[in-house]
């Protein structure tokens, strides 16, 4: 088997080396850098211990707390929306209707569109004066909004634009749904239960592992929101969409404060780790595996 070991390592080497060189290495480097005052343009870099973290948490850097709050707000708004809507769409797509393949394609299509292109489309749709959405609303005599240009409406608007790209979440839900054995539904039919019973007693319990997976992925993705701020709002108006990663990027790549930006990055890493851990811990009580295994 030693020969097998050698070949196994040989063939996995690209992936392992790739991870080691391009992910693990930079991560360790940034952890070290987060303890320094590394500024790209300065020749002198010195070890400052936990100074960067002290500066962050002491409230000296107001934008740190502000961007953190804004990002939390975004996550709280987006995660339930993504899970509920994509699950609903998956249920619909799972019905035996004509042209199911076409609908599936339509739902998935936005995920293929480059982020920049879809952001531009949303910019036009949400334009307060000329945009399609406001035009329709005012035609129907409904209140309109400033969308991305209003301080209170900017975050919900960004959430709205990201909901467009939930195709991949829907696909994963569909995979989960298609794995549910028909017999369970038949059993309910025999017992005289309707669609609601099917949903609450079979469908939802059977896809809890998928819900669990999608929730974690959506939480991670939402904390890392960047493109929308970069393209749509540049953090405005009045810093109300200064997402954490956008602020991190600005600190690192505009102000060249790479040491400080590394500290910011590690804090985000820990936050995401914490929330993932929480979801994992609670999963024992609500995720059901058919084999009886527990997560």
């Amino acid at each position: 088997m030693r020969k097998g070991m050698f070949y196994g390592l040989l063939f996995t080497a690209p992936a392992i080396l790739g991870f080691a060189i391009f992910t693990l290495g930079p991560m360790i480097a940034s952890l070290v850098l987060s303890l320094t005052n590394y500024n790209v343009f300065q020749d002198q870099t010195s070890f400052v211990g936990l100074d960067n973290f002290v500066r962050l948490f002491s409230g000296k850097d107001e934008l740190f707390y502000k961007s953190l709050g804004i990002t939390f707000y975004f996550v709280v708004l987006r995660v339930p929306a993504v899970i509920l809507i994509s699950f609903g769409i998956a249920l619909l797509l799972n019905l035996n209707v004509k042209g199911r393949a076409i609908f599936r394609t339509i739902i998935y299509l936005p995920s293929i569109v480059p982020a920049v292109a879809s952001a531009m489309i949303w910019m036009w749709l949400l334009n307060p004066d000329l945009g399609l959405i406001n035009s329709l609303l005012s035609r129907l005599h409904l209140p309109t909004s400033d969308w991305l240009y209003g301080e209170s409406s900017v975050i919900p608007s960004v959430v709205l634009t990201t909901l467009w790209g939930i195709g991949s979440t829907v696909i994963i839900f569909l995979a989960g749904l298609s794995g549910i054995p028909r017999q369970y539904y038949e059993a309910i039919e025999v017992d005289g239960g309707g669609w609601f019973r099917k949903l609450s007693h079979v469908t939802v319990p059977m896809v809890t592992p998928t819900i669990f997976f999608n929730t974690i992925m959506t939480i991670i993705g939402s904390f890392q929101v960047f493109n929308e701020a970069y393209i749509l709002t540049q953090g405005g108006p009045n810093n109300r969409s200064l997402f954490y990663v956008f602020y991190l990027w600005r600190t690192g790549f505009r102000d060249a404060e790479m040491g400080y930006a590394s500290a910011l990055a590690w804090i985000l890493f820990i936050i995401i780790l914490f929330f993932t851990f929480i979801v994992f811990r609670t999963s024992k009580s609500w995720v059901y595996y058919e084999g009886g295994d527990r997560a």
Partner: protein
Amino acid sequence: MLLPRKSVFITLALILMLAAVLSACSKSGTASPETSAPSGNAGSKENITLRMTVWGSPEEVAPYKKAIQNFEAKHSNVKVELQHIAADYDTKLTTMVAGNDVPDIAMMESGTIAFPMAEQGKFYNLQEFLDTDADISPDTLVPNITYSLEPGNVIGIGPGPESFGLFYNEDIFKEAGIEPPPSNVADAWTWDEFVEVAKKLTVDTNGKTAADPDFDPKKIKQYGANLSTWWGVYSNFIYSNGGDFISADGKTFALNQPEAVEALQKIADLMNVHHVSPSPVQSKNIPATNVALQTKKVAMTVDGQWASAGLAQSKFNFNVGVMPVMKEPVTTVVCGMFSIFKSTKHPQETWELLKALLDPEASIDMLTAGTWMPSPKDWYTDPVLLAKWTENLDARPSGYKEAIVDVILTKGHQTPTGYVKNFNNIMDLVNPALDKVWLGQQTAQAAMDSIAVKAQAQIKGRRDIKE
């Protein structure tokens, strides 16, 4: 794991070679330049390569290529390797600096990373060249196009200045029977005159103008004026009103002072009181200057002279006048710059290259297209040279010479990015506060006062005075 001994050695050897190659790439970035720069035009005769980085559209890069050709023809032993970085220039250059792999000469932007890099001594002081060079000195260049870290330490020279003017659609004025904006600075409109004209030229969908009592500001079809909320535009009026971003001694935040506040408030009033200029929300519907004027969405717009290029291609009767004056006629002069890295091994040849890049003959296409203006002063004062880029061209309408050329020579003001230290961090506070002013939710005074304490903490002085 069964590995023949030999292959272990080979692997080790490969790793060592790779390490050697990698470390060879990262030369020490602090090497002092050779002080004994060979004099004379030809430079030393060994074959050398100079690296250069630029940003810009393909049209903008073409003149650089031409300048490089001219330069290489003169200096047979020098090759120039041009690196065109189309996107994320600052990020890429930052990465180069981090890897100690910098070009000899680079185009730099005063508002972003040029000064942070200069503060760390990354750039060659061009003052010594300007002092000794026979062809070029501060007096032979248009004012306000050199950038200095402090007096006597020049970090970059602009290849083409840009100033601001009041571009307008002539037909709109003819149809309304209104005198268009004057092009001579002596006759410039006062701010109030400008507002009056803008009112008459702001029309709603019922054909009522903003001067009418039953004008509907919610249904504007044509705006009389368009002033963007970019600092490049509003700085003109802050200076014109005697205000500044920072006090003359460099000690105090000045945007909350009466002169600056008044200018900012007057611009905000255009949007929210007089309804003659699109608010930030409405301006998202306003296309680029050339289209906005051509389609009569806007009658007049304050914009940089680079707008001439697009206007020339739009084929309609546009012209340019001087901007309205609050107290004194002033135009902000903005431009990129070419900087020489201190780590260059060939400062003299790189300086010669920089001079070649400033040569208007090489960039004549950009000058006649309207995108650029030349850097050497004699191209403004010598009638023959001036004619080359301002006469019989679509991009240079009748008002151009007076409204743009004369004004930049006599009324120019350096861009705030050039002399306000820590400009970015100050503006990080100012811009969000101004968002509220443009939207009409707060007065300029209240907004600037609300951030004054924080902004004051970011004030680090001025670059144009000796500390």
